[in-house]
């Protein structure tokens, strides 16, 4: 999104004209603009500007269903992704829930959504966007249509009510991909809302909703006391179960009939609550949540064996209690890992025992390990507040990636273990160490992740060529003073990580060597950008070449030969005019030529030394010359003498 005055209209894919000044209500969690198909039809459509689409967006956009808003095109413009789709067929559900009967709900909501979830199940995808503002009335107002999926991070824009507890406790960015069971839960909440004509627990704060759901169970909290249509009640109780395994599968829902019954293992709360801090806790799940909120009180209860006996006596959870008793001892400071506070680790482990479906609790926050790249991306998009958040999330990520064995423990739930291992593999594949590894994670995880540099995040650049265009537009002296250019280079660390990830994806690692080779930073940046220009077949970038010319001219100092320098300077001027970075670099940075130049220079120095030595006055020289001159004189004299003698003899005897 450029400044509106600056760029009011944008052409996408040679067909769609986007009016960036006409912003409409967000669709699919993305800023939405009015657009027009300037092709044959001239019809109006929508242009969506996703900032953090799903890594598997192309697959998701391939899904086709009558009740899923389809996408006409997705194209990059200046490196930013634009998704073009039609207008929703009707108003969103947020405008008001319809008063549908039981059959209408099954035909208009359960079946279509279950069919979409089945499609996703086949493709091993999740939707995570079933919420009123992403559901629209279809034509005829008798069925619901789901907005385009995959355009926002999973669960990011879901209201807390619509998320199962396993992700509701997390920050929206930390909810992770989730599973289809999560989608089934969201669908259950939607259907309850359709039955009641309003969203359950309306008017309560998120904190109150969570508290109530944890204490009573989500289903009880949402439905408790109100009447549901008979045919839907058993299905909804199952869908809203807090145990993912108890929820029906999409195929169960697709074949749904009013008479269908779903069995559910009831979870009974404790007879006597456990008091932690000032709160009474009735369920193990609520205890896990409060353990995270009041770790000091929880630790004290844990050490006094109160928790184990409460579980055993009041909840008849003997197995859970003995597991906690067993593990309690192993978390005492006997561990050789000094870096980890044993109490923190104990809380994490005990939470995993109390609620195996809960996300990971670590470093004071709830999250799913596979959401860490998304959390880093979210932290990067926070603007002024990004530093603290980025530091915390980076520390957590680097700890998890550095200590995967900590999570390879029988008590760590399988889902978390798998996600940690996937994260570790993702990090190890880059072969990068230190903060760069963390910085690259969002880009390695998601090829469509926009560059998180604070300088270009508004431009939503998710293609390498976009960085080059951005640099071309933002390389003036005003934006990048000379000292800044020589000290910090053309790009920043985020942009470099972004490009590094994209190069690695295309197996073009040679461009990345420059970063490690100890070149000046602006020079390494230039090598990266030149590679981008080559790979993306981007046109000329005269602004960058003009800007870099003085610096590259300085580089020519390393050449010893004066004529060589002059020749290269002329060639540089030529390349600057052409805006060709590769050519520019080939002239200024030619290691082979430079080595040859140095060798010739050395030979020239040796020759100079030899010549200077030859110029030094030779002490024997004058004596030698004198003798030589005398010999020459005598030789001349001798020859003349012989001539005279012969003439004399001739005169005497032959005349």
């Amino acid at each position: 999104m450029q400044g509106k005055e600056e760029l009011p209209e944008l052409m996408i894919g040679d067909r769609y004209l986007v009016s960036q000044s006409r912003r409409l209500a967000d669709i699919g969690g993305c800023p939405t603009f009015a657009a027009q198909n300037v092709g044959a039809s001239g019809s109006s459509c929508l242009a969506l500007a996703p900032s953090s689409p799903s890594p598997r967006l192309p697959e998701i956009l391939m899904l086709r269903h009558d009740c899923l808003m389809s996408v006409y095109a997705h194209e990059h413009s200046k490196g930013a992704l634009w998704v073009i789709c039609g207008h929703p067929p009707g108003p969103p559900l947020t405008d008001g829930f319809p008063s549908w009967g039981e059959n209408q709900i099954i035909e208009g909501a359960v079946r279509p959504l279950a069919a979409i979830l089945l499609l996703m199940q086949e493709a091993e995808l999740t939707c995570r966007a079933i919420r009123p503002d992403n559901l629209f009335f279809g034509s005829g107002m008798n069925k619901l249509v789901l907005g385009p999926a995959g355009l926002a991070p999973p669960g990011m824009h879901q209201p807390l009510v619509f998320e199962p507890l396993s992700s509701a406790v997390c920050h929206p960015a930390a909810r992770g991909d989730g599973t289809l069971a999560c989608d089934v839960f969201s669908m259950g909440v939607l259907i309850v809302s359709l039955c009641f004509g309003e969203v359950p627990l309306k008017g309560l704060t998120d904190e109150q909703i969570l508290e109530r759901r944890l204490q009573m169970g989500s289903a009880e909290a949402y439905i408790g006391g109100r009447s549901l249509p008979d045919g839907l009640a058993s299905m909804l109780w199952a869908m809203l179960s807090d145990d993912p395994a108890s929820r029906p599968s999409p195929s169960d829902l697709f074949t749904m009939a009013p008479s269908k019954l779903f069995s559910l293992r009831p979870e009974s709360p404790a007879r006597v609550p456990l008091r932690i801090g000032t709160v009474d806790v009735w369920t193990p799940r609520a205890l896990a949540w409060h353990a995270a909120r009041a770790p000091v009180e929880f630790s004290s209860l844990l050490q006094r064996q109160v928790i184990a006996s409460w579980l055993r006596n009041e909840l008849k959870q003997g197995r859970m209690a003995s597991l906690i008793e067993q593990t309690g001892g192993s978390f005492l400071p006997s561990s050789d890992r000094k870096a980890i506070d044993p109490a923190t680790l104990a809380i994490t482990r005990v939470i995993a025992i109390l609620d195996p479906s809960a996300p990971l609790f670590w470093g004071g926050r709830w999250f799913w390990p596979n959401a860490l790249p998304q959390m880093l991306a979210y932290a990067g998009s926070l603007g002024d507040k990004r530093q603290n958040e980025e530091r915390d999330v980076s520390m957590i990520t680097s700890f998890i990636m550095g200590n995967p064995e900590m999570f390879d423990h029988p008590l760590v739930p399988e889902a978390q273990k798998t996600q940690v291992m996937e994260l570790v593999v993702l990090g190890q594949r880059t072969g990068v160490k230190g903060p760069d590894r963390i910085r690259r994670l969002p880009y390695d995880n998601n090829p469509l992740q926009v560059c998180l540099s604070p300088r270009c995040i508004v431009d939503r650049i998710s293609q390498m060529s976009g960085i080059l265009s951005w640099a071309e537009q933002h390389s003036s002296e005003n934006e990048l003073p000379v000292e800044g250019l020589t000290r910090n280079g053309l790009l920043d660390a985020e942009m470099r990580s972004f490009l590094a990830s994209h190069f690695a994806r295309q197996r073009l690692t040679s461009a990345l060597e420059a970063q490690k080779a100890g070149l000046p930073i602006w020079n390494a940046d230039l090598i990266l950008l030149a590679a981008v220009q080559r790979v993306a077949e981007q046109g000329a970038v005269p602004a960058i070449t003009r800007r870099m010319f003085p610096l590259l001219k300085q580089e020519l100092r390393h050449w010893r030969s004066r004529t060589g320098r002059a020749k290269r300077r002329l060639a540089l001027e030529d390349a600057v005019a052409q805006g060709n970075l590769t050519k520019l670099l080939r002239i200024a940075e030619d290691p082979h030529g430079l080595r040859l130049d140095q060798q010739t220079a050395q030979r020239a120095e040796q020759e100079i030394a030899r010549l200077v030595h030859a110029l030094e006055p030779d002490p024997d020289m004058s004596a030698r010359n004198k003798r030589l001159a005398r010999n020459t004189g005598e030789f001349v004299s001798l020859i003349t003498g012989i001539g005279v003698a012969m003439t004399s003899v001739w005169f005497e005897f032959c005349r």
Partner: protein
Amino acid sequence: MAKLMRNKGSAATLSVPDIPAFRWWHGIIIGLLLAYTPGSLLVGGVLLLPLVFLRLIDPEADGQRVMVVMFYLGAAMVHPLRVAWSVRGDWATCLSEITQPTILILDWLALGAAWLIAEVGSMGARVWYAESERQRRKAIEARIKALQEEWIQPDSSED
């Protein structure tokens, strides 16, 4: 030839310059000549006096120089010696020969000519050597300057 001369020259500087090494057979030859042709010996001896003079006044006169001078003196001696030969060493004739001022002047001029030509030649050679050395230095200096300009000095016009 020059090499040969140089060798000879260096050998001459090593030998004792003023006193020629007389051997026993030198005495026999001179004795026989004194006995049979004292006139011719007188002519030869008087005409060779400039050589003795040269050895006395010129400390640098080595064997090489003597040989050169011998050619000139020889040229001046051809006529008097032939006359002495033709009169079979007649003492009076030989005496008149060596008292003829023309012959004596020619003989001494021959020595002068030999010396002068050698000195002028050596002077010319010295001038020539000096000139060629100057040319060589000029060429080397020009080459050093060119190399330094190309490889050593940073040029101020560039930046």
